[in-house]
């Protein structure tokens, strides 16, 4: 047992940090407080691709470096510390690439994987999973894909589609089997959909932060070729679940608000000496130490889950534990940061007198979504209890 990174892992971390700091200094991006993957820049993704950092954990036969989840996490940790704009390739690299390697056809692999890994133009993905009546109960999707010759005809509605308005492709879960005797998780299939197909309408959903990342996506007789079906027909739900560990073990769940964390430490350190006495400051010390501990625990959970994946395990419960813990940590962080800063913390970005470099008020509002996306905390706890601890359904 050892908790140390290897020499080459430390070297990777150093390289990524230098790269990100240089890009930040050059003004390629600035540290803002948006949902992480909502920040994207094709130019930035291209530069990452040149370094071989997109697909760092993909097998070499698909153009990757063949490194592990741990290396990918090291790379992303350094990116997220500065909120680097990795959104352009993020979903394609994390979700679509590995799914195609596992379930895709030769044509799909040849067509999409090289584009994703080199951050080509026109290869940004969004996820078309949730529907108005299928959220936590994802297998209950009612968007239909009905086979007609060599095509499928798609009808229905998706919701909470992050970056749907800018993505080039969507990763769609739709119902393909209408035999009512089948359990519903054996009735859906996965497809890749070109978001510019005729019949697709995208409507913005402005979130409570005041920002546009979510969309509603409507399908009205959208015709796609069967070559865009991924994996087996009717096995879509199972395929998605097999990929969930990658999403849930991600260190982005811990670091969406890292600038708040580092800025808060700076803010406390720069308080007047006269403020650093008395019971109020003892409270701040105690709470900040608690957050430091929780951050450490969260980081260990992320890395140990990544390590388990690298050992060939399928750490479903462990990944759920990691995500449940980390997202709740981030909510506590933002809440505490605002308490320390006081009334000024509600001042939004762009307004004069904003107390931190980052918009902590926006982070606090964004925090509401952290424990909902990618499996709500409650769904995650069900998984931990039933699959991890073996409690009965």
């Amino acid at each position, binding site marked *: 047992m050892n908790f140390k990174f290897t020499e080459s892992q430390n070297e990777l971390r150093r390289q990524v940090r230098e790269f990100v700091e240089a890009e930040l200094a050059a003004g390629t991006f600035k540290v803002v407080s948006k949902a992480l993957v909502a920040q994207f820049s094709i130019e930035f993704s291209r530069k990452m691709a040149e370094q071989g950092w997109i697909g760092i954990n993909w097998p070499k036969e698909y153009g990757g470096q063949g490194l592990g989840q741990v290396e990918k996490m090291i790379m992303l940790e350094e990116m997220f510390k500065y909120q680097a704009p990795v959104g352009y390739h993020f979903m394609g690299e994390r979700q679509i690439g590995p799914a195609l390697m596992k379930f895709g056809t030769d044509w799909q692999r040849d067509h999409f994987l090289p584009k994703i890994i080199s951050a080509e133009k026109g290869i940004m993905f969004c996820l078309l999973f949730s529907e108005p009546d299928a959220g936590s109960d994802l297998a209950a999707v009612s968007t239909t894909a009905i086979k007609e010759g060599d095509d499928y005809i798609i009808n229905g509605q998706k919701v909470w589609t992050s970056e749907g308005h800018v993505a080039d492709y969507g990763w769609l879960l739709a119902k393909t089997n209408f035999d009512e005797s089948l359990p519903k998780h054996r009735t859906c299939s996965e497809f890749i959909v070109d978001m510019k197909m005729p019949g697709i309408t995208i409507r913005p959903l402005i979130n409570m932060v005041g920002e546009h990342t979510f969309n509603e996506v409507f399908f009205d007789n959208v015709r796609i070729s069967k070559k865009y079906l991924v994996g087996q027909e009717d096995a879509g739900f199972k395929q998605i679940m097999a990929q969930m560990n990658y999403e849930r073990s991600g260190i982005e769940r811990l670091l969406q608000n890292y600038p708040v964390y580092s800025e808060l430490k700076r803010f406390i350190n720069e308080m007047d000496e006269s403020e650093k006495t008395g019971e109020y400051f003892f409270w701040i010390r105690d709470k*900040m130490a608690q957050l430091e501990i929780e951050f450490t625990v969260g980081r260990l959970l992320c890395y140990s889950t990544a390590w388990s994946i690298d050992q060939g395990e399928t750490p479903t419960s462990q990944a759920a534990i990691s995500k449940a813990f980390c997202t709740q940590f981030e909510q506590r962080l933002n809440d505490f940061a605002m308490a320390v800063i006081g009334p000024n913390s509600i001042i939004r970005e762009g307004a004069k007198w904003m107390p931190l470099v980052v918009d902590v008020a926006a982070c606090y509002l964004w925090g509401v979504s952290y424990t909902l996306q990618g499996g709500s905390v409650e769904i995650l*706890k069900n998984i931990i*209890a039933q699959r991890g601890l073996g*409690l009965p359904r």
Partner: protein
Amino acid sequence: MDFALNNEQEMLRRSFAEFLTKECPFDQVREIKKDEAGYSKDIWKKMARLGWLGLIFEEQYGGSEGSFLDLFVLFEEIGKVLLPSPLFTSIVLAGLLIQESGTDEIKNKYLPPMIDGKKILTVALLNEKGMIDGDNPSIIAKKVPEGDFIINGTRLLVPYANIADEILFCAKIEGDNEGGPSLFSVNGRAQGLDIQPMDTITEEKKYAVVFTNVSVPAANIIGKIGRGDTHLHPVLQKAIVLKCGEMMGGFRQVVDMTVEYAKERHQFGRPIGSFQAIQHYCADMAIDLEGALLIAYQAATLISDGVSCAKEVAMAKAWCSDVYKKATQVSQQIHAGIGFTEEYNIQLFFKHAKESELMFGHSIFHRSKVANEIGL
């Protein structure tokens, strides 16, 4: 990175577990508590024969020079069964103090019989207020012309003082205002020592030890005069991490027992473990356990590697204390009435978690250390 124990350590864990589950079922824990000595001589002898009392001691004194991590794993397994024994106070506290600070003569005198299980040592750490006052002890040692010291003062909650052959303690030397406290050892049956049992909520025997003009020869000073606090500090760091190991064993057991109970107990025609309220309680425990194991093992591996880790140790004790206690509280809620009875075993862990939280500093104390370490 490697988050798993190696094969040897896993084998060691299995042998610890097999022995302890066989030798120390919960009925035995209760028997031991009723026993005057407060430990099982039979188990103690067997543990000595297995070499467990010498795990981290030098070979020349009869030890096996294993790693600190091996000992951590042993304490995890002990925490699962809550074996009451002088292992912690004798081997960890006293043994390490002697190994790390004693002269060859002292080590030769104390370590081999301790490792053999023939002599039991203890350390009297807590003053009348229940504080570890190693930096400024309330025990006073007065030097007399013959060169010996006369000791006066009180220590509370001293584990196994009744059976200890030697009791170690820090004392301030009267009239010496510059030197720090010194570390002494006194024969457990020395004249002037009053040792009275204290009734507490846990299974381990604890005593009040009152020193009234106890004479201790100068040769009984361990380490350097005036440096008792610096001798004590690194040993306390290790003790804290091993206490975390013991707590993690208890925590694992609490989760296992609670999940088992939730599967078996039926209400409304279903196992209560099928109810989401119960499932989420259990999931919260599992989340906390996973994190606590990682942060405790992190500290243990750093100590094992000889890396300085004040922050990691403080983080581990703060976190483990809080989440283990929380789990025992939730576990009582899930077990409901039966868990509140004396005969049911889960309550043993409820008490163990509370005591462990308070020993060697609770979470508020250790968070204050963490705050220092991050520059606040």
